[in-house]
C-alpha cells in the first residue's frame, strides 16, 4: 500500500502506544503538502478581529482583506466596525513606488469617517518586501488624529499562524497600560483568548458575575479599546486558547505583575475546573478574606446548579452516541484537549486528534489523555486526514470549514468547531449544544444513502 504521508512528514504523525512518544512539530509547512494552515496575517487577524470599536485596515493587495471580511462569528454588543473589511488595495504603481502615501490617506479618510477608538494596520506579505515604513506612518497619523494607530507586523510569509498571534499580542500590548485603573475591584480578571463566537463570552462573563468577580477586559471577544487600555489593572489574566494570547499574558505578567492562568471553557470538566481554579486563586491570594470565601461558595453553587441542569439533557445524547468514533483536527491543540474530554463524557471514542500549530508540550499532553491506537498528527493535510478517517471508521469529524468537505465527501458526519460557527459550544450550555451538534450529524438518516453505508451493509 502507498504510504499515507510524504516522507518528510512521517515524523509529524504519532500513533499512541506503538513507540515511545515522539513527534516533530512547530516547523514550516512542507511545500506541496497542502497544509490546512494559514499564515502570520491570519493569526493576527483572528486575534484582533473581534475588537469592535477599532479600525482594522489591511495594508496590501485586496485578497487578504476580502478573504477575512466578516467571516468570524465574533459578536459585539455595541459597535460593529470590525465586521467591515478595509484595505489599501495596493495596485501595481503602489508596489513600484511604495504604498506609504496611500496608506496614510486611507487611514485619515477612514478615521474621519468612522471615528474609531484605535486603528490597527496589518502588514501583508508584500509590505514586508516593498519596505513601507508602517511605524512611521502610524506614528504620524496617531499624532494627527489623537487615537492609537498601531502597526501589526503580520507579513504572511514571516512564520506561521503562531507568529501572527505574537504580532497581535505585541500590538495589543501597546494599548495596555494607557488606561485608568482606579475603581477596579481586587476580585477582577481579564478574559483572554475567547472571541465571543455565538455570544460565548457573554455567557462566561455572566458566570464570573455570578461568582462576584469583575471582568475588566474581554481580549478580544466583544472587545473594546478602552477596556484593553486598562486591562493591566485586573488581578488575574484568565487565558483560553492559550496559543493565541498566552504571550500577551506573559508580557503583562512581566511588566505589570498580573499573574495568569490557563483554562478551557469547553466541556463540563474543563469549564468547572476553570471556575474553581479562579475561585481558588482569589482564596489563596486573599487568605481569610470573607469575600474570597464567598466567591468560592458561589462558584460551587453555580457549578452544581449548571451541572444538575445539564446532565438529564445530555443523557439522551450519551445513549445514542456511546461507542461512536470521533476525529478532531483543529487550529490550536488546546481546544483538542477539551474535545477529547467532552467526547469521553458522552462515551465516544477519539481515534484521531491533530492540530495546525500544536507544540511538543501540547502533543505530549494529548498523548497522555488519549487511548492507545489514537493517531496524533501535526500540520496535516486532506490526503492524510481522509486516509486516517477511512482507516479508523470515524463517525464524526470535528474541525473547521476546510475539514468539512473532506468529511462530507466520504459520507462522514461533521461538527464545526471553528470561528464561523453560530452555535454556543463553550460553557455548560455549550456542552449540551455540542452533544446536540454531534448527535444531529451522526444520527441523520442521510448517511444511509452514501456509498460508505452500502459498503458496510
Amino acid at each position, binding site marked *: 500500500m502507498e504510504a499515507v504521508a*510524504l516522507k518528510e512528514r512521517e515524523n509529524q504523525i504519532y500513533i499512541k502506544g506503538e513507540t515511545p512518544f515522539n513527534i516533530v512539530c512547530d516547523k514550516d509547512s512542507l511545500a*506541496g503538502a497542502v*497544509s490546512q494552515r494559514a499564515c502570520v496575517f491570519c493569526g493576527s487577524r483572528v486575534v484582533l478581529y473581534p475588537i469592535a470599536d477599532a479600525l482594522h485596515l489591511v495594508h496590501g*493587495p485586496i*485578497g487578504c482583506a476580502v478573504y477575512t471580511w466578516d467571516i468570524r462569528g465574533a459578536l459585539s454588543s455595541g459597535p460593529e466596525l470590525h465586521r467591515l473589511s478595509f484595505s489599501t488595495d495596493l495596485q501595481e504603481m503602489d508596489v513600484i513606488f511604495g504604498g506609504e502615501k496611500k496608506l496614510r490617506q486611507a487611514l485619515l479618510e477612514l478615521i474621519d469617517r468612522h471615528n474609531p477608538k484605535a486603528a490597527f494596520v496589518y502588514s501583508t506579505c508584500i509590505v514586508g518586501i516593498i519596505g513601507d515604513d508602517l511605524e512611521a506612518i502610524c506614528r504620524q497619523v496617531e499624532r494627527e488624529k489623537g487615537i492609537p494607530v498601531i502597526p501589526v507586523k503580520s507579513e504572511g510569509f514571516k512564520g506561521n499562524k503562531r507568529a501572527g498571534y505574537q504580532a497581535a499580542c505585541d500590538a495589543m500590548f501597546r494599548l495596555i497600560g494607557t488606561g485608568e485603573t482606579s475603581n477596579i475591584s481586587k476580585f477582577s480578571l481579564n478574559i483572554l483568548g475567547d472571541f465571543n463566537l455565538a455570544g460565548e463570552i457573554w455567557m462566561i462573563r455572566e458566570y464570573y458575575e455570578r461568582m462576584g468577580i469583575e471582568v475588566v477586559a474581554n481580549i478580544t471577544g466583544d472587545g473594546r479599546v478602552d477596556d484593553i487600555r486598562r486591562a493591566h489593572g485586573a488581578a488575574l489574566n484568565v487565558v483560553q486558547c492559550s496559543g493565541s494570547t498566552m504571550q500577551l499574558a506573559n508580557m503583562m505578567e512581566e511588566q505589570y505583575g498580573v499573574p495568569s492562568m490557563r483554562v478551557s471553557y469547553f466541556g463540563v470538566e474543563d469549564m468547572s475546573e476553570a471556575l474553581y481554579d479562579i475561585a481558588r486563586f482569589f482564596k489563596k491570594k486573599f487568605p481569610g478574606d470573607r469575600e474570597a470565601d464567598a466567591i468560592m461558595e458561589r462558584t460551587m453553587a453555580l457549578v452544581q446548579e449548571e451541572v444538575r441542569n445539564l446532565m438529564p439533557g445530555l443523557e439522551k445524547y450519551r445513549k445514542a452516541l456511546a461507542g461512536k468514533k470521533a476525529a478532531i483536527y483543529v487550529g490550536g491543540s488546546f481546544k483538542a484537549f477539551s474535545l477529547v474530554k467532552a467526547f469521553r463524557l458522552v462515551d465516544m471514542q477519539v481515534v484521531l486528534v491533530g492540530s495546525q500549530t500544536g507544540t511538543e508540550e501540547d502533543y505530549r499532553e494529548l498523548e497522555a489523555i488519549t487511548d492507545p491506537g489514537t493517531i496524533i498528527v501535526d500540520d496535516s493535510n486532506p490526503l492524510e486526514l481522509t486516509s486516517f478517517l477511512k482507516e479508523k471508521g470515524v463517525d464524526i469529524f470535528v474541525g473547521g*470549514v*476546510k475539514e468539512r468537505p473532506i468529511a462530507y465527501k466520504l459520507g462522514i458526519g461533521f461538527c464545526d468547531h471553528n470561528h464561523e460557527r453560530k452555535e454556543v459550544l463553550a460553557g455548560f450550555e455549550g456542552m449540551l449544544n455540542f452533544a446536540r451538534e454531534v448527535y444531529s450529524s451522526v444520527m441523520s438518516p442521510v448517511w444511509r444513502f452514501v*456509498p460508505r453505508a452500502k459498503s458496510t451493509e
Partner: protein
Amino acid sequence: MDHENSDNREKVMSKNHPNYIATTNACKLCRPLGACLAFKGIEGTVPYLHGSQGCATYMRRYIISHYNEPIDIASSSLSEKHAVYGGGPNLKLGLTNVAEKYRPRMIGIATTCLTETIGDDVGMYLQEYAKDTAGSKGLPDIVNVSTPSYSGTHMEGFHGAIDQVIEQMAEGGPQNRTVNLLPGFVSSADYRLLREIMDDFGLDCTMLPDLSETMDGPAMLEYEKVPAGGTPLAAIKAMGRSRATIEFGRTLDRKGSGGFRLKEKFNITGHRLGLPIGIEETDRFFDLLCKLSGRPVPEKYVGERGRLVDAYVDGHKYVFGKKAIIYGEEDLVVGMSAFLAEIGIFPILCASGGTSGRLAEAIAAVTADILPRQPEVHEGMDFFDISEMAETLAPDLIVGHSKGYPLARKLNIPLIRVGFPIHDRVGGQRILHLGYSGAQRLFDTVTNAVIAKKQDDSRIGYSYM
C-alpha cells in the same frame, strides 16, 4: 418604458461620485483565486500557488464555502528565507511532492503578490525543473500563469489562466470538426447545461474549463485525490485544430483572451458573445450554434423558449418598472442587465470591482434598444460606494453574490443571489444562469421575490397574487 423616480437618478448623475482612497468591503477577489478556479476545471489538475502558505488556505476556505466541495490547492509555503533568496527550491520541492502524492495529470501554477514582487522567474525555474526531472516517467504537465494580486481581479486571473493553458498546451495541425467553447467563470450547473446544448446541436466541443463535475461531484467511498471530470487534456492539446471558437464575455480584452490567442496562433475563427443570460443573449448564442452546426434549434429548446416567453408574459406586471442594483463580475453584470432589462426591470446601477474600461459600452450593447436611457455604470466599485449610491437610488431589489446581503438587509429589499460567492445559502454551484432554462429559473426567482416582498409587507396578507 416608464420609470418612476427618475429625478433621483439625475441627482446621482450630476454628482461626481467621490473617489475614495480606501477600499471598504471589496466587490472583487484577488487574481490568483480566479486562476485556481480555472485550473480546477481541467482534467486531473491540481492548482498550485507559488507564494506563502496563507494564500492557498484562504482561497480554499473561500471556495469551499461556495461549493461545499473539497478543493486542494498546493502551495510553495514560502517563508522568510525564501523571500530573500528566491522561491525556486521550494517551488521544485512542492511540485515533486504534489506529483508524488496526488499523481495529477497537470499542475497549474499561479503566482502571488509575494513571488511577483520578489521577482521570482517561474518560467526559468520550470525550465530547470524540466531538466532536473528529464527522463522521469509519469510526470504531470505543468502550466504557469502570472497572477500578481495587485493588478486586476479574480476574473483577470481566471481568463489569464485559460489563456496560458491554451498558449502552453494547445497544438496546431489539420483542422477537425471541433468547436472550442470558452464560457468564462460560470456555475457548475451552467457548465453542465452548456455541454448538453452543444451535444444537442451535434457539435463536437471542447469546453475550457469545465467545473461541472470537479466542483459538484457525488459522495464517494474513496477520497478522489483529484476529482474526476474537467476538460480532457487531450482535447486541450487539440484546441489549435478546431474550426471555431466561441468565447463568452463582452468586457474581455479584445487582444488578450483565449479566443484571441487561438485566432492569432492557429487562425481559428473566433466568435465573441455575451454570457447567454436572458432570451436575447441566449438567442444570439443559439443563432451561432445553428450556423456552426447547420441545424435548426433542437425542439427541446424551442419548447423551453416558448414556455419562457409564456412565463415572461404571465409575470410581467409584477416586475415592470422595478429598479435593480446589479453588482459583481463585469460579464455577469452585463448578462444580468440584459436579462433584467428585457423583463421590464430597470438596472439603476451596474457596479463591478473590475476595471476593464468596457463595462458601460457592453451594457449599452445589450440594453440600448430596450431601455429609454442608460443606467449608472461604475467600475472599480466596492460595497461602500454601492451602498452610498443606493441611498439615493431607492432600488427595489439587488442582484449579485452573497456579499451584498448586508446592503439588502439595510435597505430591506430582496437579494437575488447569482454568481460567486454564494456563502449564505446552499447550492451556489447549482444556480443555473445560462440559456432559456437559466432565464426561466432567474425569472421565477426574481418575480417571486418581488411578489413575496409585496405580500410580506402587506397589511392584509393575501394568499393569492
